[in-house]
């Protein structure tokens, strides 16, 4: 880096900074402003109501149902994604047959369009001729109503785990692959068990990668929208809305628009706060001495 060169600073930054200000920073601030108003969007009069929308959130059962679903994806989904992720990482770092092919295959669901995934998974869950019930009936178990109102959220989370776990496994694996093999060999010579090696060597050495992966999962899980929205079908039942879906439906409608732009904006603000809370807590929890290789 050198001082003395200046000519390009402004022209090179200007397009990015102005786009960012006009289409991201500005809208984000304006969104916060809208959240203090009552507004149907059609009439021009935005009515200032202060914190009323936020008060409404506190007593809105649909919001808290959606909040619960968001948390279920974040934590229940997250626990399984990382359990499976760690399992796969541990196995693959010890060497499995066709490691490269397996790596490529388990990663792939992550880059399939979520709408396509929703179509397919909904079909796999079909009561009459779906994949899971065809297996269940063939082994003499009663079929399950996977996408019935009581089960649909659980089924959605299973699918989300399915298309996410491989991706997070491979992020972790990329961290493990950076650890020199000699360290593992030395541990094995010393007689350490597989489990010991994982907890005492691998885990501390991929701590940073892991904490970033968990924070990334958090951001993605909180804003998750497309898969769940399409998975719910034409009229997704309220019980399976997460906060992102509720926010969208209030602002843009499902079929019958609701157009509560102020309220919808307030809900979006709460989502930002949840992300911030998650990232800040996550960074605090995972902060510790970094082991340098």
């Amino acid at each position, binding site marked *: *880096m*050198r001082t003395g*060169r200046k000519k*390009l*600073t402004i022209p*090179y*930054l200007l*397009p*990015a*900074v102005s*786009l*960012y200000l006009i*289409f*991201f920073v*500005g*809208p*984000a601030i*304006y*969104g916060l402003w809208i959240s203090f108003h009552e507004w149907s969007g059609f009439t021009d009069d935005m009515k200032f109501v202060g914190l009323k929308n936020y008060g409404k959130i506190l007593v809105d059962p649909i919001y808290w149902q959606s909040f619960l679903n968001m948390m279920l994806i974040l934590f229940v989904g997250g626990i399984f994604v990382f359990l499976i992720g760690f*399992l*796969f990482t541990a196995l693959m770092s*010890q060497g*499995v047959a066709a490691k490269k092919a*397996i*790596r*490529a*295959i*388990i990663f*792939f669901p992550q*880059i399939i*369009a979520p*709408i*396509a995934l929703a*179509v*397919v998974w909904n079909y*796999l869950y079909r009561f009459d*001729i779906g*994949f899971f019930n065809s297996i269940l009936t063939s082994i003499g178990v009663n079929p399950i109503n996977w996408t019935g109102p009581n089960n649909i959220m659980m089924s959605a989370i299973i699918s989300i785990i399915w298309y996410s*776990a*491989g991706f997070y496994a*491979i992020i972790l694996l*990329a961290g493990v692959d950076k650890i020199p093999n000699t360290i593992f060999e030395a541990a094995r010579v010393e007689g350490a*068990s*597989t489990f010991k090696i994982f907890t005492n060597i691998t885990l501390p050495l991929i701590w940073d990668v892991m904490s*970033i992966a968990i924070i990334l999962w958090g951001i993605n899980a909180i804003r998750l*929208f*497309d898969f769940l*929205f*399409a998975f719910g079908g*034409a009229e997704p039942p309220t019980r399976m809305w997460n906060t*992102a879906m509720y*926010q*969208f439906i209030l*602002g*843009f409608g499902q079929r019958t628009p609701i157009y509560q*732009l102020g309220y919808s904006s307030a809900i*979006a603000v709460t989502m*930002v706060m949840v*992300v*911030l809370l998650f990232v800040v807590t996550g960074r605090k929890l995972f902060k510790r001495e970094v082991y340098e290789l």
Partner: protein
Amino acid sequence: MKSNGGNVWSALGKTFLYVWTLFILFIIGWIILASLKTNRELFEGFWSLPDSLQWGNYYTAWVQSDLASYFFNSLIVVSLSVFGIVLVSAPAAYVLSRYHFFGREFLTNAFVIGIGIPYQAVLIPIYLLLIKMGLINSFLGLIIVYIALSLPFTIFILTGFFQSLPSDVEEAAIIDGAGENTIFWKVMLPMARPGLVTVMILNAVGLWNEFLLAKAYMNVNEKYTLSVGLYQFYQSMQYNSDWVSLFAGVVIIVFPILIFYLWLSDKIIEGMTAGSGK
């Protein structure tokens, strides 16, 4: 000391990993097969096999259900967006990583924070802005939004790349009397090519699959992107249960990604994991 118990667990784990992998392949194979059945065959049961391959389903999806035009809409939007993203991000990332000026760190952080902001926070305000600008239901509008919202992540990755470039080539060019523009376009940008390729791939895949913004800002049939078009096609299943054509549609949206992936899987995996592992 390896206990037998450990081996059993390891074997169980491996079995689980293999089953998981095979299940993914099975699902992909099943979708392709389902897209070649007749609707009657499809509804015979999950395990039914087609008598003959119904390529006509693809004609129905592609032509009659308009997925062809959605496909090309997506192609235009994604390629122009990716081009725009690189054009805007690369110079900014270059200056942020290799120049010294007041506010550099603040600006870098301001971009990074954008990575964590959920799009929901800007969904309605951008909608209003696009209406004001007359850019709702317009490819240009969607492209500008895609470029703007991709900046944080792209600049973040590219800044890392430019920082890792050695400075001796740059200094040699300065001594040779090359202008600042020349140094960027002719010296630094070519050296950063792997980084540029990475961000192009990641953005292309991400935008090809993008749904939320396209759904919110494109409300007319002829402007749908492929993921929105597929969603609407899926919604129409309750009136016409032409599921086999819907599955053809699923194959159509996944196909370009699959080809891309077969060709560049290492690069894609590397890019996506390095991108998040930084």
